[in-house]
């Protein structure tokens, strides 16, 4: 069943975000959401942290595409943890048939060396492997994966990471690496790619998101949507929050309520408890105010925004499916 989504035609979903915003969680949930209804999606990790394995409660992933989850309505999520060294060997074998030379390079620490001296090389290997998966076709000429989700480096490094041609251009003006990076760039800068940002409704992550989007656009890379993660729904109506901030909250009414609920022993006890609870309300109101401001700042970017509620029980498999469903309901997948 095909539905309209905000990202029809996009095959490479790059997910970035500031540390602590839940980037890997969002990438995993997005992969599940995209796979729903019988599609095949590859979830890629590049930083060697084994975050995907942890989130899906699996043993560490090898450098190999394997099925890790079944999506709602029958779809498959495959996962791959890309190791730059393995990617290099594969690349040499695939394009040059140089398996033995590749092993020798690794043994001598050359791959380690080259990726250390020039991180652009490392990035081009990683993005190269990712875009290869995006482009890969089966015998009938159909794409093997309907979509690829890349759990990418954090916001601070994302433009540099994706802008491989520029990074490599200073090092290799001609030759195979240059050609390879041009190929990667062709995919990354095309309408088949969208770079999504994960943020919280807090000042620093929002600022980083705004800076990241601006940087990305300047580099001619396709900015995607913003996933606002760990959103806490307000329990209190805005009018009540306003009175709390202005110091006009009706503590007497709350005290009566507490007494009626059997939570306080006398009038004095009830009003003491009500005063204490008021502290929580005021704090909540301030927090909400701040969140509103941050949300408005995000609106100005003009990118689609998706809100993901805080998972009450922390991130587990059930939580991932919950987030995936929420993404689908909002049109992200």
């Amino acid at each position: 069943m095909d539905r309209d989504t905000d990202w029809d035609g996009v095959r490479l979903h790059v997910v970035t975000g500031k540390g602590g915003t839940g980037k890997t969680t969002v990438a995993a949930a997005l992969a599940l959401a995209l796979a729903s209804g019988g599609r095949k999606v590859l979830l890629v990790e590049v930083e060697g942290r084994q975050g995907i394995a942890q989130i899906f409660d699996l043993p560490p992933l090898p450098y190999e595409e394997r099925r890790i989850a079944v999506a709602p309505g029958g779809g498959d999520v495959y996962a791959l943890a890309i190791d730059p060294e393995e990617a290099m060997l594969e690349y040499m074998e695939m394009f040059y048939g140089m398996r033995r030379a590749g092993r020798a390079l690794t043994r001598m620490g050359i791959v380690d060396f080259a990726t250390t001296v020039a991180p652009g090389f490392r990035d081009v290997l990683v993005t190269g492997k990712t875009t290869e998966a995006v482009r890969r076709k089966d015998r009938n000429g159909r794409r093997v994966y309907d979509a690829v989700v890349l759990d990418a480096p954090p916001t601070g490094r994302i433009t540099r990471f994706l802008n491989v041609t520029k990074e490599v251009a200073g090092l290799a003006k001609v030759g195979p690496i240059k050609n390879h990076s041009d190929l990667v760039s062709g995919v990354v800068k095309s309408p088949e790619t969208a770079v999504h940002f994960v943020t919280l409704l807090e000042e620093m992550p929002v600022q980083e998101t705004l800076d990241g989007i601006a940087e990305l656009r300047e580099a001619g890379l396709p900015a995607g949507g913003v996933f606002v993660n760990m959103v806490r729904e307000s329990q209190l109506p805005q009018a009540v929050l306003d009175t709390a901030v202005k110091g006009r909250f009706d503590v007497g009414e709350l005290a009566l309520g507490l007494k009626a609920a059997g939570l306080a022993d006398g009038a004095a006890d009830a009003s003491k408890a009500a005063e204490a609870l008021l502290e929580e309300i005021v704090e909540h109101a301030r927090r909400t105010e701040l969140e509103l401001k941050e949300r408005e700042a995000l609106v100005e970017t003009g990118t689609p925004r998706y809100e993901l509620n805080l998972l009450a029980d922390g991130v587990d498999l059930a939580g991932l499916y919950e987030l995936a469903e929420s993404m689908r309901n909002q049109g992200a997948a």
Partner: protein
Amino acid sequence: MIRKAPVLDVDAILDDRATRIIVCCGSGGVGKTTTAAALGLRAAERGRCAVVLTVDPARRLAQSMGLTELDNTPREVASYDNGGKLFAMMLDMKRTFDEIIEAHADPERARQILTNPFYQSLSSSFSGTQEYMAMEKLGQLRRSGEWDLIIVDTPPSRSALDFLDAPERLGRFLDGRFIRLLTAPAKAGGRSAFKLLNAGFGLVAGAMTKLLGAQVLKDLQTFVSALDAVFGGFRQRAEMTYKLLQAQGTAFIVVAAPERDAMREAAYFVERLAEERMPLAGLVVNRVHTSPVSGLSAARSTAAAEELEARGEHELTAAVLRLHAGRMQLAAREGREQDHFVSAHPTVPVAQVPAMSQDVHDLDGLRAIGDLMAKAS
């Protein structure tokens, strides 16, 4: 809530004149930089001459310390009657690297290195460069003797303790066969390296040329031979800084937030620091949620809200009770995450800093964080 963990006494560490270096480490997004700045301010207010070295390019932090920008030189932020002073600086990784090259190579060689495309790539984007340069800068500040307390905030690395690995990594890099291969022409009086090679090396050289192209290989060779002369000093300094970190007078503070990933990272840091025999002072847990009504449990609060809702009265109270229940649940979850850490590391002192409803914007904000950190003891 944490019951068994000993309490981290921040003031005792800051007041101890023997404390000369404080290293704040932790995963990204846990408030490491803010913790470092708050410690620096508190130290200055208590009479220390402190400098905060940060790698976080957040403008807000500079602004919170009343500076329009932070650059590679320590700038004075505040001074007090008791002689206390606070300085702050932000690491400019490339500038620091350039300075080392300039200090260690003759002008001609320095120029060769600085203009080489590989150097430019290495100095501005190598993921370990920032860690290494932070340690280098720390060594410089310490040797200058101008400050009696240096507080350093470590980079949010992919691998969180990269700064500890930097010296070793550099060593491995320098001693590798590949470096020797590339520097061979210089040592063999200009003859091509590859003529000297045996069959195995020949295979590799062929592969490299094919992969990288001849120009890249030549640039790489020039770069490595030029850098070769500078390397000795480099490594020695890296080792000195490493020893400085292990020495008495250094205190590592691991920073975390009460969330699963951050606490897991914190546990990893603590273990790793012990392995490296680095002096751990304790753990600071930022953004901990507590409640002024902690006696009213989530369960009781929810039950009361349900009852009021069923009776159709006191709508406001019911909503407030639900809000409170949510907060108690959050506090309980955070408590569990911290308990995991404490049961695995029962001897590590912990300080909890309550969540603030607003971000830090100025020195008052930093001071408030410092107060909360100290109040934990």
